[in-house]
């Protein structure tokens, strides 16, 4: 392990060499930054991983059932398990997707499930990301480089090789491909995750493209070469959000999408990965209902726990939230990326009463959660001293012929000792995640 720490400078230099960067906009200007890497890996033991694996597979399978139900018969709403307000007034519910079933009926092909571990060793689910979860490429390339800089460490510890992510991803694309090439659709160079788009294209052999190079004709999707020759596209791993995908179906002003791609998808002529409309299932309000979904669709108890969550929408929960306000973290269901998160105890009394007013007038907009006492992970600070920091784990669950959990994940940490926010957009860093194979 000391080898890794000794070599941390080498690794960071190598990460820079290979362009492991993410884009960020500061004062309206695009800048590329290195994603700070910490050499001390998070280690997950074999047993623990197989427990996580079972829980994550179960959760993602239930979420896929839910999406298929919501855009189909809506039985879970009719049976009163989830109130209709949580579905049909959610931004993530996309009416054009109603009645459309994706190839092989898979909605969430790549699910990024965020977890944290508490001091008493329990794992809790923090949130589900079923739209375009990003981040797998970072631990992939970091591992590649660490194996070069400290090979002995990997000989001594049996660490499951995580560089198979590209194979898993290719399997997922091939599984739903309707005949034609696989492409990765990126908004372009100036997107925060462009490194990842180009790296995954290189490693999976898919073609990296932007909307400009594709066209829909007769409800088929094509990629056009410099001679104007067309090649059919059977699967689009799109890294742009639903609203921008098709200006003819969603946001009309979008210039990064492909006009009429939705018609090709609707007719089963191309797969879109992940399916449009998934936002209805990873809404923070819906999160509360996932354990109920697992019971409803699979007849099983949830293996992995949610963080204890309250819905102010329910009167009883509102009462609890108001009387325990200082002990809770309140999240705006419409926000992501660490924004819209408020710790009750951190508000001044003026702000608190304003916030409570807002909570009372728009109860559907918020969820409240108990603050989990995180199990901190050590990182190396600027002086190469080990210090504990908050960290989470984004597990990647891939649904192809079967649902598989990638034996690694993206561990993100907060560099600020007082912060719980680990997002890269807010200055967080990442670690490799080791799953031990014995």
């Amino acid at each position, binding site marked *: 392990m000391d080898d890794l720490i000794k070599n941390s400078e080498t690794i960071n230099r190598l990460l820079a060499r290979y362009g492991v960067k993410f884009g960020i906009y500061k004062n309206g200007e695009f800048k590329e930054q290195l994603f700070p890497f910490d050499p001390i890996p998070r280690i997950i033991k074999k047993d623990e991983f197989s427990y996580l694996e079972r829980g994550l597979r179960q959760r993602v399978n239930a979420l896929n059932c839910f999406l298929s139900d919501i855009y189909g018969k809506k039985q879970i709403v009719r049976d009163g398990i989830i109130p209709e*307000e949580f579905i049909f007034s959610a931004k993530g519910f996309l009416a054009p997707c109603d009645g459309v079933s994706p190839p092989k009926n898979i909605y969430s092909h790549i699910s990024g499930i965020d977890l944290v571990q508490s001091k008493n060793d329990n794992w809790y689910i923090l949130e589900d990301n079923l739209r375009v979860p990003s981040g797998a490429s970072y631990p992939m390339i970091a591992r590649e480089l660490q194996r070069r800089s400290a090979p002995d460490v990997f000989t001594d510890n049996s660490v499951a090789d995580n560089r198979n992510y590209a194979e898993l991803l290719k399997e997922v694309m091939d599984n739903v491909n309707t005949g034609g090439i696989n492409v990765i659709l990126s908004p372009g160079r100036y997107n925060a995750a462009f490194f990842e788009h180009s790296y995954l294209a290189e490693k999976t052999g898919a073609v990296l493209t932007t909307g400009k190079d594709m066209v829909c004709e007769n409800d088929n999707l094509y990629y056009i070469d410099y001679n104007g020759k067309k090649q059919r596209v059977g699967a689009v791993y799109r890294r742009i959000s639903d609203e921008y995908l098709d200006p*003819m179906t969603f946001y009309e002003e979008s*210039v990064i999408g492909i006009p009429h791609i939705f*018609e090709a998808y609707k007719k089963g002529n191309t797969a879109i990965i992940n399916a449009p409309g998934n936002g209805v299932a990873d809404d923070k309000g819906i999160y509360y209902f996932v354990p109920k979904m697992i019971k409803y669709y699979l007849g099983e108890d949830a293996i992995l726990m949610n963080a204890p969550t309250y819905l102010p929408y329910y009167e009883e929960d509102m009462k609890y939230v108001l009387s325990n306000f200082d002990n809770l973290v309140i999240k705006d269901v419409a926000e992501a990326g660490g924004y819209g998160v408020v710790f009750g105890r951190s508000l001044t009394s003026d702000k608190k009463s304003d916030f409570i007013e807002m909570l009372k007038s728009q109860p559907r907009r918020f969820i409240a959660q108990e603050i989990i006492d995180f199990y901190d992970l050590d990182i190396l600070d600027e002086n190469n001293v080990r210090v504990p920091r908050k960290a989470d784990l984004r597990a990647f669950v891939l649904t192809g012929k079967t649902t598989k959990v990638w034996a690694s994940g993206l561990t993100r940490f907060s560099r600020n000792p007082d912060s719980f926010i680990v997002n890269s957009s807010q200055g967080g860093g990442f670690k490799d995640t080791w799953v031990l194979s014995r």
Partner: protein
Amino acid sequence: MRGGDIIKRLKFNYDLTATYSEEISNHSFSALCIPQDTQRQKISELNISTDKGAVCQITNDSFLNKKLYGKIKTPHTSFGIHISGIADTGIDIFEEYTDYPFGAILYKAQTELTRPGESLTRYHKHFVFEKSDGVYNTALKIMRDIPNVFSYNSGSTRIHETSESAFTLGKGVCQDYAHIMLSLLRMEHIPARYVVGMMLGEGSSHAWVEALCNGYWYGFDPTNNKLVNDEYIRMSCGRDSSDCPVIKGSFYGSGVQNQSETVLVEEINVKD
């Protein structure tokens, strides 16, 4: 309540012209302006034409509207869609509720455009509904009251204005009337949808509302404070105006799109 015996035969012509300030190319479009058969109306002699060599297809959107969509490759500065036909209207005064595609649940939820704010919430409070009113009379009461607080004015609201801001302004067009009525119906937990169509004697397309009353969709026209009858031809419906854009376009070029509509609906004699 069946009004099956009053049938009007309406001849309709719908012209949509989009013009561009500069030449555009690689033009994709989609349009929702094709009337189709419902329980209320039977369409015959339907003729759809487009110009500029557009390659077109027709599909059903998720609200079961007929969507015309396609592409024009050659550069141009204008594009026209022309729809004409005969509509027999007033066959029924309502449309029976079917469970497909959404069920009614979807239409109960407020949308970005109909979500009430302070002024609509205050306005809603002044209504007194009796239990005995039932859904239909509740909807009727709402429609009858709107003209008291909202007036017609064609330059004051934007396209896709929210019902709350239009209501605060106190004036607007048929789209705003319909959105305000949708907000109030949904506040009463009545499933309601936005409808776009044509109307006898009107020179452009019109918007109104349908409310689900005891298993049937009834049409209410809050702009004219009138129940939808055999003078109306329906083209599309959705949760609010953003689900029913008459035309959408995406193209290369910096041209600004300007669109104009000409609608002509005339009554002709029912043969025999």
